[in-house]
């Protein structure tokens, strides 16, 4: 029910991994909402996200601000990834003042998101909690691979690609940053955190 909810990882990693989404409610406030989304986009992007995207344009690593603003529709949703709670609090404060009446959702460690809300003078409205992965979990890849692949909740990051990258890097082939960006390009929404991915790739190579 949500593509930014089930990110796996150590608490110390997740504490610096915030995903932000804004969209209109179809049938409620979607008419001419693209203009509001553009304004929200322009406010949030000032806070230097590590990745961002508009769903019809793709992530910034395959698109541009101009293209995203041009493609913005009344049913678009926009995403941003941040590594600092202060930045989240900063744009939430601005959005509260601007009062666009558009929904904004922040994924992250709930206690950290709560603190950001408090700094911005907001109260959490509704929380979606992850009850974990159930069922035939023997089919899942190892935990470290999941830390990377679950950063695209739509499941577009291939576990085999991650494993191949680790093998390459271990053999001295490829570049950590380039591989992390290549992974980020596969996530259409722009919610993949390439900085985290780079660190995880390094850890996976060191651990093998």
């Amino acid at each position, binding site marked *: 029910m949500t593509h930014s909810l089930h990110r796996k990882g150590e608490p110390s990693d997740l504490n610096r991994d915030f995903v932000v989404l804004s969209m209109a409610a179809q049938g409620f406030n979607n008419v001419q909402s693209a203009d509001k989304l553009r304004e929200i986009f322009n406010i949030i992007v000032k806070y230097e996200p590590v990745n961002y995207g508009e769903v019809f344009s793709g992530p910034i690593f395959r698109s541009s601000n101009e293209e995203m603003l041009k493609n913005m529709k009344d049913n678009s949703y926009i995403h941003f990834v941040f590594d600092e709670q202060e930045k989240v609090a900063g744009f939430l404060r601005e959005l509260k003042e601007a009062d666009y009446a558009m929904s904004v*959702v922040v994924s992250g460690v709930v206690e950290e998101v709560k603190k950001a809300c408090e700094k911005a003078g907001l109260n959490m409205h509704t929380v979606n909690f992850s009850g974990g992965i159930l069922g035939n979990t023997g089919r899942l890849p190892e935990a470290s691979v999941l830390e990377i692949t679950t950063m695209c909740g739509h499941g577009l990051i291939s576990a085999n690609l991650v494993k191949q990258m680790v093998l390459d890097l271990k053999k001295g082939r490829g570049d950590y940053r380039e591989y992390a960006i290549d992974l980020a390009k596969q996530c259409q929404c722009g919610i993949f955190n390439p900085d985290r991915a780079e660190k995880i790739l390094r850890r996976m190579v060191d651990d093998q």
Partner: protein
Amino acid sequence: MYIDQEKCIGCQKCLNYCPVAAIEYSGRSKDQKAYAFINRDECVECAVCYRARVCPTDAFVQEALDWPRILRSAFSDPFNPHKGTNVPGRGTEEMKTTDITNRFPEGTIGIGLEFGRPGIGLRLKETEPVIRRLLESGIKLEPCNPLTELITDENTGQLKTDAANEKVLSAIVEFIAPLEQAEEVFDIIREAAQATETVFSLDIVGKVSADGSIPVMQEVEKAGLRVAPNGKVNVGLGRMVAK
């Protein structure tokens, strides 16, 4: 999606990009050139291979899809808005806009069973047993959800026959129940976890009360479930202007 065999040079660069490992390799032989091909039965039409642009000869071809194969793309490629809901991604707004829609009012628990996630996929028919079990318990599934739209029998939860075998990256069984029914709901979820051949990610949604508490969490604790420290928070900016 298919790979133009005339163009493919068998370099294998594309193989690992497929999230469900549906791109296969012919191997080399004296009699024929090596090439990659897509296992059409396993392919979920997510278009990752096409958009990755790793093919040096642009051999991937994204064709127009007919019913029911088009469901694979609708449930797997976030670029496509669902026709019924006009929402891209998995086609549901869930709690993202509840500050405007009041989709999850106080006294309720929201549940999402994200079948196929993370990264395993499913045949749509794999959701039928849990849908049937929920309907038997009087639970109504979220109507603005693309999977609910495929149900043809509201008593048995049977999906459209020609849709049932389509393979997709994920499909979400989504519903809202009274908080008093939470225990029964969690029992059904445990049964589903035992029975399914695939995986599902469990979403548990609760409104924050005026005093800052989240009543849904009391039910979660009572059921002996554990939730991750990270979650998804609607910060209430949509509520600030009345509908």
